[in-house]
């Protein structure tokens, strides 16, 4: 409250008041604080200060001038301490119950407590929530002190005091929010899952820091200093928050420069998105020229995070292509690499909104003409109209298959090579079909291609295994013309049966341990085998059993009935060894 206009103090009286409150002079002056006492005392003191300041120009004699100057200094020193004291009394770090993400709160207090004379309004984002850090009567006192200090030329002292008290308050708030001071070295040494937790915490804390803590500090500076001088509120604000802001961003910066590896992609995208969300608020809170460096740093970090995401994707592709493990998975089942990659790109499709913005260039693939045998080709002509991200996902599937193809060659059994590829490509197809976003990006055209591939693998498998088995059941070579037989060579026939039985037993024993995890695919393949095997055997039996049964030990040759075979097929691709060999279940 301003002292009443009509009250007037003589210069001597004013001086006396100032000197009475000289803390270097008397014990009593040290013990009490003016602004903690009664308001009359406050008003009188301020009046005295005003009087002294007014009299600088009117006093002419050098002695008096010296007295006035001295009095001013004493008054300013006193006011500085009063200023500091008021700030300290009202210093408390922000209560943790107010520390909820403002963008998630339903109400946003639109400058409800703000002084109506403040014309500054920067509420362009609704997610900023300023709170009153200091009660308004204290603010008024602070303002009345600040005005006098600044008009007496004690601006620097004012800023120093303000900055030092408010800064340590912000530091305390930071500690409550769980913001740690970690060096880049510390962050490099932490395990990634620990970092994930810290990133999550940082995201929550940063939102509160920028939208509440910093925004409120800025409002406080404006309330106290706005209009008192040029850009003083700015200077005080920067004095208060520059250090903490740098400390806040250092964490995000350290994450953005950490070593890239595929598992980091999604948390880095989270961090990127959170920061991107905050940039408008950062631009508003730090809009002044002197806080440019903070805005710049935030933008730099955002761009580095984007780069990191791109780099990780690129590295992931590299890793998939060059994944070197050679140990074949037992039973030709789905390779862990396949699962990992398909899960990974499913997650990528969840983040497609951000990644579509970040990924702008096509994957660097081998061209058809490079002759480089270590990289597959991919022509983009047939993939018109796809986003770069979608192209990358398709490319990843291409290189996954390429890698799997290489791995499949380590199986000694040619049939297993095909079964393995069938299993894995089928899995890819299922995963794509299972995710609408992924399916939409990959596209049904390519999906059809993949489907064709695993069907081809199935066909190749059948050819590799069953051609030679069924070869035993062919007609040619069994008929002879001769004088003693009725046209069928019994010995050849016996050979055939024996070979057929041996092959079948071998295939049965071996391929029961192979695995087709997908039950539908398993069933389909068995049916397909049956459709060829069973009729062929039935017909063979039908035509030639008499010849065997009319000879010695027919049971050595006709070991199995059609039903036996049907049952045996059921053992295929179960993934574990048969408990009993192919048995004659029916006699």
């Amino acid at each position, binding site marked *: 409250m301003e002292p009443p206009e009509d009250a007037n103090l003589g210069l001597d009286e004013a001086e006396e008041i100032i000197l009475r409150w000289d803390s270097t002079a008397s014990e009593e002056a040290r*013990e009490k604080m003016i602004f903690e006492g009664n308001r009359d005392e406050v008003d009188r003191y301020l009046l005295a200060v005003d009087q002294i300041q007014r009299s600088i120009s009117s006093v002419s004699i050098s002695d008096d001038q010296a007295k006035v100057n001295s009095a001013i200094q004493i008054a300013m020193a006193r006011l500085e*301490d009063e200023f500091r004291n008021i700030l*300290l009394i009202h210093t408390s770090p922000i209560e943790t119950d107010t520390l909820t993400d403002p963008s998630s709160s339903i109400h946003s207090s639109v400058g409800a407590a703000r002084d109506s004379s403040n014309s500054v309004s920067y509420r362009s984002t609704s997610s900023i929530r300023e709170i009153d850090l200091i009660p308004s009567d204290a603010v008024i006192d602070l303002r009345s002190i600040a005005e006098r200090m600044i008009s007496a030329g004690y601006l*620097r002292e004012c800023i120093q005091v303000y900055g030092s008290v408010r800064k340590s308050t912000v530091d305390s708030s930071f500690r409550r929010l769980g913001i740690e*001071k970690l060096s880049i070295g510390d962050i490099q040494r932490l395990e990634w899952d620990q970092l994930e937790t810290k990133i999550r915490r940082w995201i929550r804390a940063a939102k509160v820091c920028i939208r509440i803590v910093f925004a409120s500090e800025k409002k406080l500076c404006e309330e106290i200093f706005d209009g008192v001088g040029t850009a003083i509120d700015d200077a005080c604000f920067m004095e208060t928050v520059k*250090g903490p802001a740098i400390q806040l961003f250092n964490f995000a910066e350290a994450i953005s420069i950490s070593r890239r590896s595929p598992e980091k992609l999604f948390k880095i995208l989270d961090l990127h998105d959170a920061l991107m969300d905050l940039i408008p608020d950062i631009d508003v809170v730090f809009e002044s020229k002197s806080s440019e*460096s903070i805005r710049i740093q935030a933008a730099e970090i955002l761009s580095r995070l984007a780069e990191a995401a791109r780099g990780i994707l690129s590295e992931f592709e590299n890793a998939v292509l060059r994944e070197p493990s050679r140990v074949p998975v037992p039973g030709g089942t789905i390779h862990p690499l396949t699962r990992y990659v398909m899960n990974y790109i499913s997650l990528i499709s969840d983040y497609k909104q951000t990644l579509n913005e970040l990924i702008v260039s096509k994957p660097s693939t081998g061209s058809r003409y490079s002759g480089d045998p270590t990289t597959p080709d991919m022509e983009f002509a047939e993939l018109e109209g796809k986003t770069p991200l979608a192209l990358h996902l398709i490319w990843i599937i291409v290189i996954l298959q390429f890698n799997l193809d290489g791995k499949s060659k380590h199986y000694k059994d040619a049939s297993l090579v095909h079964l393995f590829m069938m299993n894995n490509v089928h899995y890819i197809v299922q995963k794509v079909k299972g995710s609408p976003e992924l399916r939409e990006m990959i596209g049904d055209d390519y999906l059809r291609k993949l489907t064709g591939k695993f069907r081809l693998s199935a066909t190749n498998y059948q050819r590799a295994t069953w051609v030679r088995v069924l070869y035993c059941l062919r007609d040619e070579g069994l008929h002879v013309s001769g004088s003693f037989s009725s046209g069928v060579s019994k010995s050849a026939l016996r050979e055939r049966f024996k070979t057929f039985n041996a092959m079948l037993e071998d295939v049965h024993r071996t391929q029961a341990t192979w695995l087709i995890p997908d039950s539908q695919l398993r069933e389909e393949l068995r049916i397909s085998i049956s459709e060829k095997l069973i009729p062929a055997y039935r017909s063979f039996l039908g035509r030639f059993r008499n010849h065997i049964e009319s000879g010695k030990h027919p049971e050595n040759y006709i070991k199995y009935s059609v039903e036996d075979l049907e049952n045996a097929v059921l053992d295929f691709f179960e993934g574990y060894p048969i408990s009993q060999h192919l048995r004659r279940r029916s006699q």
Partner: protein
Amino acid sequence: MRATENNQGSFLNRISIRRNQIVSMDVNHEQELQDLDLFQKRVSDRFSNLFSPSDESPIAGAGETALLSIAWLRKLLDVYLCCEAEFKVLLLMGRDPAHISKAPLDRLVPELLDRAVKSLDICNAVTHGVEAIRHCQKLAEIAVSALGQKPVGDGQVRRAKKALNSLIAAMAVEDKDGIGGKFSDRAWSFGRKGGAGSASSKDRTVGQFRSLWWGMAKGWSAARQLQAMSSNLVAPRGAESTGLAQPVYIMSTVMMFTMWALVAAIPCQERTGLATHFPIPRHLSWAQPMIGLQEKIADEWKKKEKKGSFGLLDEIQKLEKLGFSLTEFAESFQFQAESDRLEEVATQVAELAETCQKMEEGLVPLQQQIREVFHKVVRTRTEVLEVLDQSGKVSTPTM
């Protein structure tokens, strides 16, 4: 047949990757040796300039650029950036990516990258230190403003004294039980008993200063960081000293020296035991200017170490010297001082004003330059890591 296949593959590789290189190996080798020599010479020349800098820089003001002044540090950072840029070209341009993953580079390059990451923390620590210096600058400016008024009266002197006491206290924070302790009491006009602040005034003042600018993680030490950076820095010998091991060593040394000089000049968290030497073998001809600089700086550091110094920055030294001197004046000030004393004080105040002016003009650009160094180091490291990953041979996880 196998052999032919392999040859065929690598032949094709050579065609596609080294398209622009001349086939003749001899010419390549010559060129490379020349490039390495040139790099070495340029480094040496630049540091020679720093040793006895000429007067071209407008920032230097009248006279030479004093060693470890703000202007000199900015020149040092320029030198660093130039060396860094040339080094990057040497290491990465026009080369088969696989060359970085061959011995001895397969060990030396990851070590360099590790050093680079450590230097980033030093950049951050130094940035905080510059903020601390700005704080001191503002206190000094109060004194300048107060003592600059004519005639110097009682009030102004008291004002100046208060600011100067705060200044000395701020600069003495690193000094555990030295002179600074006495002055910290006077940051307040009087001691506060109890009250909302609770802690005693001295602790609060010191605590305030500490919280103001020790921005690094608890337990972080600039001295230990530098020690860690230099621990595996060994000059290549024998066969290794031709080829790229040499420029990697040179660049590492340049990096070490730059960071070390920054830490010596600018207040940084925890510098006790700052190794006054990191070993540069004396016989290296290109390193002579750097060794000379190192000796000079190390001497200064040893002199100041016992008292505990805020930093060797020329402007800080001036602030310390003038701060003490003017405080003495303020302490003993009678109402009318002798005119020649006043003249002496006026000269000192003018010098202080000039120093503040240099700080005002130079500190923010210095911070920006440090930031630029930060960026360049990150960028180069990223590019080198990409090359290493491409060649698919990164076995041990590097930083």
